């Protein structure tokens, strides 16, 4: 026993040496595409994609990545863009800002001309580097709403409605519903939000709009981690008694809010959630589709399982003798956000190749994305420019009806002038 113990240090030294030797060889292998129906002929174009496969929001990250990867594989299986295959360097960061910086540097080193900086803290950590290195960073649904200003953040692309635009659209929707139902006066709105920087972001916009419209707005904060909100819901149902509730919650708190509001007797068809409260899992965790009947959710992509692009992806899997991932249907909302993000990247590359031709740099990709107008792949509706990196901030609203999300209102914007006064102030 004693003798054996003495060898521990030696064994450890050996283990460390082996370990160090092992990490030297660990070259990052770029994700390779699936067998292709049409082999791309040109040189590859490299982009990056970050996501979280671990941690609190991995439910979103895994589906997001699957959607992104499937769409890129679909493009590659059709021969790439003008014959150039797209090579994606994936990087898992566990929603950790440090790892995100590591991912970014890794992708930059790998020759990526653009990347997806998935996650608000990661976006905040790398946005300065994106501008400095001239690498396009896209972050639909993440990052700061002010990044919509393309003059201030030349390489930052929200490419989807920011929290400001979402809040504006939500109020617009509430007022239109109010009018449609023929009610008089103005509705009273409660804003139930997660008390973090992202949750606080739309407050100023909401106040400005409420003041202009003469609405009564009450703000109710939910402290982290947001798994308990009976006191907030009691305040809403007992003392505020609003006509509508706009929720802006993250993680597991949207499902808690659905459950608590319903149990307190508040009608769910008077609740509209911003984009991180309108996932499939939020509805399921709250008590199922029947339970959440009537609940409204904002989306900045088209969702649903019968979209043409999903049929194409399914077709691609079938032709390889495989089944498409069940995330496509089970976690459709977040899967579609991945598809949409990839579609914008692909469209930007296509524009860049048309404008300048191979090889393209980050600056060309920036110009390519800024040239996008209208629908892309049938999933997003963007009007980008060098000034507007948000793309107009259009959203769709879906409602839980009959066991699935059903379109309640097609692409629309809310209070664009107010939002722009904030973006370009």
């Amino acid at each position: 026993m004693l003798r054996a113990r003495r060898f521990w240090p030696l064994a450890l030294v050996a283990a460390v040496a082996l370990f160090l030797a092992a990490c030297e060889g660990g070259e990052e292998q770029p994700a390779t595409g699936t067998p292709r129906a049409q082999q791309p002929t040109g040189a590859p174009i490299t982009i990056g994609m970050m996501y979280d496969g671990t941690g609190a929001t991995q439910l979103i990250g895994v589906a997001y990545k699957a959607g992104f990867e499937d769409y890129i594989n679909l493009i590659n299986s059709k021969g790439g863009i003008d014959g150039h295959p797209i090579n994606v360097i994936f990087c898992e960061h566990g929603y950790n800002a440090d790892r995100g910086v590591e991912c970014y540097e890794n992708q930059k080193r790998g020759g990526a001309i653009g990347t997806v900086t998935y996650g608000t803290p990661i976006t905040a950590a790398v946005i300065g580097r994106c501008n400095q290195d001239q690498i396009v960073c896209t972050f639909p649904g993440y990052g700061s709403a002010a990044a919509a200003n393309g003059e201030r953040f030349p390489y930052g692309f929200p490419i989807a409605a920011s929290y400001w635009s979402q809040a504006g659209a939500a109020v617009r929707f509430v007022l239109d519903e109010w009018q449609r139902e023929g009610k008089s006066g103005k509705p009273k709105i409660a804003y139930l939000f997660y008390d973090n920087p992202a949750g606080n972001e739309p407050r100023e916009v909401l106040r400005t709009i409420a003041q202009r419209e003469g609405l009564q707005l009450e703000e109710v904060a939910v402290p982290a981690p947001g798994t308990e909100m009976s006191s907030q819901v009691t305040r809403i149902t007992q003392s505020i008694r609003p006509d509508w509730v706009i929720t802006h919650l993250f993680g597991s708190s949207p499902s808690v809010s659905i459950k608590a509001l319903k149990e307190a007797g508040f009608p769910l068809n008077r609740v509209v959630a911003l984009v991180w409260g309108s996932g499939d899992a939020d509805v399921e965790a709250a008590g199922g589709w029947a339970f959440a009947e009537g609940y409204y959710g904002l989306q900045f992509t088209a969702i649903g399982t019968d979209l043409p692009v999903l049929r194409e992806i399914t077709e691609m899997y079938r032709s390889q003798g495989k089944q498409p991932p069940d995330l496509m249907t089970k976690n459709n909302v977040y899967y579609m956000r991945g598809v949409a993000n990839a579609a914008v990247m692909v469209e930007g590359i296509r524009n860049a190749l048309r404008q300048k031709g191979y090889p393209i740099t980050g600056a060309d990709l920036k110009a390519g994305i800024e040239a996008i107008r209208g629908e892309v792949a049938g999933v997003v509706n963007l009007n980008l420019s060098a000034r507007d990196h948000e793309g107009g901030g259009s959203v769709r609203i879906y409602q839980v009806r009959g066991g699935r999300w059903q379109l309640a209102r097609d692409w629309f914007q809310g209070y664009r002038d107010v939002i722009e006064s904030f973006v370009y102030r």
Partner: protein
Amino acid sequence: MINRECGIFRTTYQADMSLYGVPLARITVAAFALFFALVFPFVVDHKHLVWANFAGISIVAAIGLNLLTGYTGQISIGHAAFMATGGYTAAIMTTRADVPFWVGLIAGGVFASAYGLIVGLPSVRVKGFYLAIATLAAQFITEWIINHVEWIGGGFQASIIVPPASLGPVRFDTELEKYYLVLALVVLAVVAGLNIARSRLGRAFVAIRDRDVAAEIIGVDIFRYKLLSFMISSFFAGVAGALYVYYVGTATIEAFQISRSIEILAMIIIGGLGSILGSIFGAVFVVVLPLALEDILEFFRGVLPVTDIDTFVSQLKLMVFGGLIMLFLMVEPEGLNRLWRNVKDYFRVWPFSY
């Protein structure tokens, strides 16, 4: 370092107290310093340089916490709050007052230190778990303040973008330049830490840790030294936070949350409480190991029978990492530093074990 002390006699107190009493130790330390200054950054990948920079920032923070928790025995679960204080101070001063980066760095440390003094006040009255909760409260209060006070959080979503650090004509722009900045501060932190630990200050800290009543009886002013310990420790954390902000380029509260506090605490527990070298081991272990595991698991990409390999690897990495922490702590509860000492002791008398 591995040194044979045979034939070396210390004849003066000064020699006995010197940092490196053995000539060979001086040579090995110099060799390590030269290696990290001249060889390491040029032989490793860009990616590994990023790891080294994060590890370096963590080393500064971990040395600070080790002075407080390891040497003085005062636990803090709010060290990320001091990092945040330093980081935001530096960010605000750089963006609004346009001060040079070194002023921001020092101001970050000084402000964090002043904040540490306030947070440390309960330590005069409460100990152990109670102090842990008091510092935990500081963590949450700090997060709340930065989130809600616009003057501090400023910018967008409580984050402030900071231009890269520059010193005279030198701009710390590239990863390599940033590496030297981090390295310089790590060296300063290590030297400062070692000297604090072996001086009057450090001995007073250890006396308080081992038995505060006894320390008071032999004449250690507990009130003063406990607060001093908090201040010095927060200074290190503040500098680490400011360095983080200059390195990353953004001050964001999401980088200084409770998980970061626990990470620093984990570093010094894994590395070894009450040891500067242990802080370095711990920081490197916690920061570099998960990333290195990713590389190792990458080898098995083709072999593993799963469909979504990227996600699988990231999850497996966490499991292996957790397992390794448990393994190391079971093999040697006193941390990696103790393991290293065992190795040294083995070689010190080798080949004559007895």
